[in-house]
């Protein structure tokens, strides 16, 4: 069963001329990580807050796990949906462990169970155990975000809503937390709605991306399809679909292997060249190729050479993606694209 089904979901704030979210429909499957991407003011936060009813929709319907969200008592609905935001919203007068324990306590868990869960979560988000007694202001921004994430995960909700949770962090901390979120996602298979206006973050995290503009969905598709087949100029500009490197970063070595015509010279591989792995992305592969000053590099899988990646391979795979940009939808079947869920 689909996890979240929105149909013509609308939010019209009083005294606003246009709806902030305008008749939006989409379906999210269990275990998907969906990124909401769009410029400031396009309605991402509003859409997110309608899911846990911090904002009541003024139109349309919302099914969560098959149940109309309006039919549940609102507090009960919210205790089953994790929520993490950029400002963290950590309770400043509560210690780390008390912050994490809020929802389990609301649900009436027994003390030992909460205790065990807190330890588990601190470990999961990579915080040392002796942080549990600290107050939020005694933590760095990145550590606060980790606590916010642990708090959102505390009662093991099936759905997580995250509103620019890493927006205020430096690039290194952000990418570390992105990695950890992906790790957690692989382990726990949450259904996640993640808001950002950072395209790189979206491409990195998303199974599928909802691109929003002016309260509407401009496109809802996989990262690769969004880059290679933007549905209109807005999506194209927002995502920088013309950016060759960005596109290469979404394709793997495995997908490009053997695309170009094999030249004889490519066969003689030299042992000290940096090898590539099939799962490396092509942006990395190009950097390696240029760095080595060679026209081809060996691709090694499990210690066995499975082929040679050549510049010709890269050149061969690019036209497919470039041709697709701005072209009709049928041009949009690209090798290496993740299967659509």
């Amino acid at each position, binding site marked *: 069963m689909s996890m979240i089904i929105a149909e013509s979901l609308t939010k019209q704030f009083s005294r606003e001329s246009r709806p902030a979210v305008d008749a939006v429909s989409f379906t999210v499957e269990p275990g998907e990580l969906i990124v909401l991407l769009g410029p400031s003011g396009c309605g991402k936060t509003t859409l997110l807050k309608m899911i846990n009813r911090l904002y009541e929709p003024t139109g349309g319907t919302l099914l969560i796990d098959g149940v109309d969200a309006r039919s549940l008592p609102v507090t009960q609905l*919210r205790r089953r949906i994790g929520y993490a935001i950029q400002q963290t*919203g950590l*309770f*400043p007068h509560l210690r780390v462990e008390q912050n994490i324990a809020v929802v389990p306590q*609301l649900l009436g868990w027994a003390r030992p169970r909460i205790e065990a869960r807190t330890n588990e979560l601190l470990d999961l988000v990579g915080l040392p155990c002796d942080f549990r007694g600290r107050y939020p202001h005694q933590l760095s921004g990145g550590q606060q975000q980790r606590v916010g994430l642990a708090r959102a995960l505390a009662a093991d909700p099936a759905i997580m809503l995250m509103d620019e949770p890493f927006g205020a962090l430096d690039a290194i901390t952000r990418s570390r937390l992105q990695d950890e979120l992906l790790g957690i996602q692989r382990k726990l298979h949450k259904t996640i709605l993640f808001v950002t206006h950072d395209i790189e973050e979206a491409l990195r995290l998303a199974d599928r991306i909802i691109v929003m503009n002016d309260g509407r969905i401009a496109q809802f598709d996989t990262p690769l399809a969004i880059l290679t087949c933007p549905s209109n100029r807005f999506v194209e500009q927002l995502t920088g679909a013309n950016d060759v490197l960005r596109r290469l970063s979404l394709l793997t070595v495995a997908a490009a292997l053997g695309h170009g015509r094999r030249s004889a010279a490519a066969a003689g591989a030299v042992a000290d060249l940096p090898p590539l792995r099939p799962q490396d992305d092509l942006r990395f592969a190009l950097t390696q190729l240029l760095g080595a000053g060679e026209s081809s590099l060996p691709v090694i899988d499990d210690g066995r050479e499975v082929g040679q990646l050549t510049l010709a391979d890269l050149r061969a795979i690019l036209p497919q993606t470039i041709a697709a940009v701005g072209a009709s939808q049928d041009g949009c079947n690209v090798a290496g694209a993740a299967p659509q869920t």
Partner: protein
Amino acid sequence: MFELFRTSYAYYLANQDRFWMELGRHVVLSGSALAISLIVCIPLGIWAARHPASAQYVINAVGALRLIPSLAILFLALPYLGTGFGPALIALTILALPPVLINVYAGILGVERAVVEAAQAMGMTARQQLLQIELPLALPAIIAGVRTATVEVVSSATLAAFIGGGGLGIFVTRGFALFEPRIMLVGAIPVAVLALICELILGLLERWASPHRQGRAS
């Protein structure tokens, strides 16, 4: 000067029963005024913080009460309310209301929006939000308001004697009438000490209520 204190002390020794009775009355009078102001201001302040648009008028009106000198409030009570404990209590309560109300209001409004929203998003009921999040976070501000009010009320309660409300002010008025500074001091010094003690205790309480602020730079 030392002679003055000595004779004051002698007067106290000679009138111990009366002194302790008036001290008790002073404390009861001040304490009641503060208690009533808390009972009124906590719900009113919470309501005001929930409806800042319409509450503005209430807050401003109560704030304006502060501009009236305490002596004037006490003497204004005289023609309308008569004399005795009751009128003195009402006058002192009026004195205590503004600082308490304004601090409850500001304390609740001062809770960060993201924090309240997080509490909501966690699935807390309105009551849980108030009791577990908003009031604890507003507590230091509320105690600061009570502290201001307490010092004001304890010292102003001295004036209650003028309208027959009793308290340590009795010795001040009596000393004044008899041109005897030593008697005035028997009232004045304990009032100052009492105010100081209250200030200290509430200061400690305020620190205790904000563990999360200790060591914060700002």
